């Protein structure tokens, strides 16, 4: 990666990190923390769905695994919350690998892959709801004990910085993917699996790596959710709402781009809040906006918000550049 790759990430992260110094309102910080947790999970989805083109409708399977693993480790085995963070990520990657192995080996793609991931998440939800070591339907409550060693902070800003740092780390990770052999092969598999195979790409391995990475990152966000709200149950952790939310953010923001998931999460949540300001008495108004934005984005803004911006920029430039391009064509 070159400096040009790193600078935008660094600048945006630093700007975002300065925010708590200007904004001291807890509700705003709380909103931002939650938004960033969603963005992080969406970044996970984007690795598999955006770069790999495998649309999962069941990323709750990873989110929930992350949340449950950290909660169970802390509650049942007294494992430190920071270690829980690492182990939860690993568990998410492992679950990703298993689901990926089963479905990719059977050659599932497109709608079939979407359906099978959905079903896996539902099975996990029902199991978590029934099993006793997950606390069953009563869910799990992580003890409120505000100490940095427990990954609980008196100041919300600290948690904000923590999530922000992880989001930034995943931004770097995705930028690296974009610039690496693995990324090129992953995108090739997305665009045309047979052509990629003919070029020596082991598509199964590439997809498995992607789903493991994706599962790990999303599990990390689930873990942070559990750590922040200190309570989870099967419907929160494995509910289909999170699968949908993690998929919406990248698609609205710009699927398969580095910043897409973050832009999407911020836009959606911002729009939802605005909708509630204007029509708060209508239940579900923000969701109507949501679904509508999704349809509109697919219809008119392929590539999401970032794609739209890029095209607008290109159009601006295109007017000037067109002439020279045509010359070069003729010259060939």
């Amino acid at each position, binding site marked *: 990666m070159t400096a040009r790759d790193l600078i935008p990430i660094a600048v945006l992260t630093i700007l975002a990190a300065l925010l708590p110094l200007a904004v001291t*309102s807890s509700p705003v910080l*709380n909103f931002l923390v*939650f938004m960033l947790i969603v963005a992080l999970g969406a970044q996970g989805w984007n690795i598999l769905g955006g770069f790999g083109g495998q649309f999962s409708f069941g990323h709750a399977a990873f989110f929930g695994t992350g949340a449950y693993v950290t909660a169970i480790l802390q509650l049942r085995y007294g494992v430190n919350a920071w270690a829980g963070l690492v182990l939860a990520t690993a568990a998410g990657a492992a679950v990703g690998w298993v689901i990926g192995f089963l479905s990719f080996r059977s050659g599932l793609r497109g709608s079939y892959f979407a359906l099978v991931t959905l079903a896996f998440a539902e099975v996990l939800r029902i199991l978590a709801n029934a099993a006793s070591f997950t606390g069953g339907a009563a869910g799990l409550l992580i003890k409120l004990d505000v100490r940095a060693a427990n990954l609980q902070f008196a100041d919300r800003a600290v948690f904000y910085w923590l999530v922000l740092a992880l989001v930034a780390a995943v931004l770097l990770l995705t930028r690296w993917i974009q610039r690496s052999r693995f990324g090129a092969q992953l995108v090739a598999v997305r665009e045309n699996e047979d052509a990629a195979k003919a070029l020596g790409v082991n598509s199964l391995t590439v997809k498995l790596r992607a789903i493991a990475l994706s599962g790990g990152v999303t599990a990390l966000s689930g873990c942070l959710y559990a750590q922040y709200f200190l*309570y989870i149950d099967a419907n929160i952790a494995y509910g289909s709402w999170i699968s949908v*939310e993690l998929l919406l953010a990248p698609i609205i923001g710009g699927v398969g781009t580095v910043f897409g998931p973050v832009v999407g999460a911020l836009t*959606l949540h911002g729009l939802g809040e605005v909708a509630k300001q204007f029509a708060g008495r209508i239940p*579900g108004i923000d*969701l109507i906006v949501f679904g509508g934005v999704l349809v509109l984005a697919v219809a008119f803004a392929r590539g999401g918000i970032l794609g739209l911006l890029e095209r607008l920029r290109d159009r601006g430039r295109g007017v000037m550049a067109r002439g020279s391009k045509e010359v070069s064509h003729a010259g060939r």
Partner: protein
Amino acid sequence: MGRSVQDTTLSGISRRTVLKTGAAAAAVSALPFAAPSVLRAQTAVVKIGILQPVTGALAHDGDLGRAGAEMAISEINAAGGIKSLDGAKLEMVFGDARSTPEAGTQEVERMQAEGVSAIVGGFASPICLAASQAAARYDLPYLVDVGVSDQIMARGLTNTFRFSPGFGKVTQVALDNLTAINDKAGKPAKTVVLVHEDGLFGSGLAKLLQTELPKRGFEILETIAHPTPARDMSNVALRIRSLNPDLVIPSNYYGEFVLLARTMQQQRIKPKGIYAILGGAASNGRFVKEFPQAAQNVIDCNHWHDPKNPKALALRKAVEAQGKSFAYNVSLNYSNVLLLADAIERAGSTDRRQIIEALNASTFAGHIMPYGPTKFVNGQNEAATPINTQIQGEDIKVIFPDAFAEAKANFPAA
């Protein structure tokens, strides 16, 4: 009734709101907070937070809870506000918990920013768990209105109070009352089938009953779990029919309870009694009105107002005049606000520590529940208790304990 915030299957998409955070965008979009308070800067006000899920899966219940709280606030203000604070008026800061714990937390943050003195509400256990914990960070008094999960009070949070009975207490009383009602009728019921939804509420209850019922001489023939939403109750009914129990104890939500009752009616299953604990429909006016036949003689052990309290009757009239049904969470929110106002009155201050102290020392009896004076031990009102109702004719009647009973128990059902 301590229901877990539910979410099932694909369409849960919106049941769990996809977008959950509260009104923080007010700040994000650079709108000022708390505009109303600016206008009232002259008169002293005490802000109290009312947290209810008025959108999402629990919207119907949340709406009723808010109605109860609003009634109490306007009543207190009409009677001259908080006298020890020179007649300061109560001002409601309403928060929509959107049927999810995160949204509940978010609203607590906003209420804190708006300077409330205490918060009442939550309804569902997961919301109460998360919201009371968020309030604990600021030592903000939190009064749980309904959430029955025993976890809520087991965390040792000093800011959290529950006026109504918890899960353990409800079950205990329900069993005591069942035994008493059965004994009084000459012990007609010996065998039991438990039907429960497989969420927090139903499973927890079933587990408790499985250990407790045999101790009281009942034989459990079978425990049947079903998901929410259930598409079909005919299997459950079939099993009940083949087991032919004296008593069916269901614990589930409205839709499934109605489905079960109607399917049992269809399959001509007539046990000696249907005894619901925190039943989803068993003390719901709409069920009685829409399916009087299926509903007939169903007994419930649940939160319920004191039917002999004139204030309760007046409240019921007022709520029904608004076109709303009168449910237990109206009475509970109403009573909780009165309880809180009394504590603020005695504290003579909006200081949080002093309100918490006043709540701890509360012996408030001006509420409309059949509890008598409150007595908080570690935040839980020890005096709180559920009572038994039975659907008789077109009405829900209190049948036990005798001190509150409006009618005699029809048991075994004719």
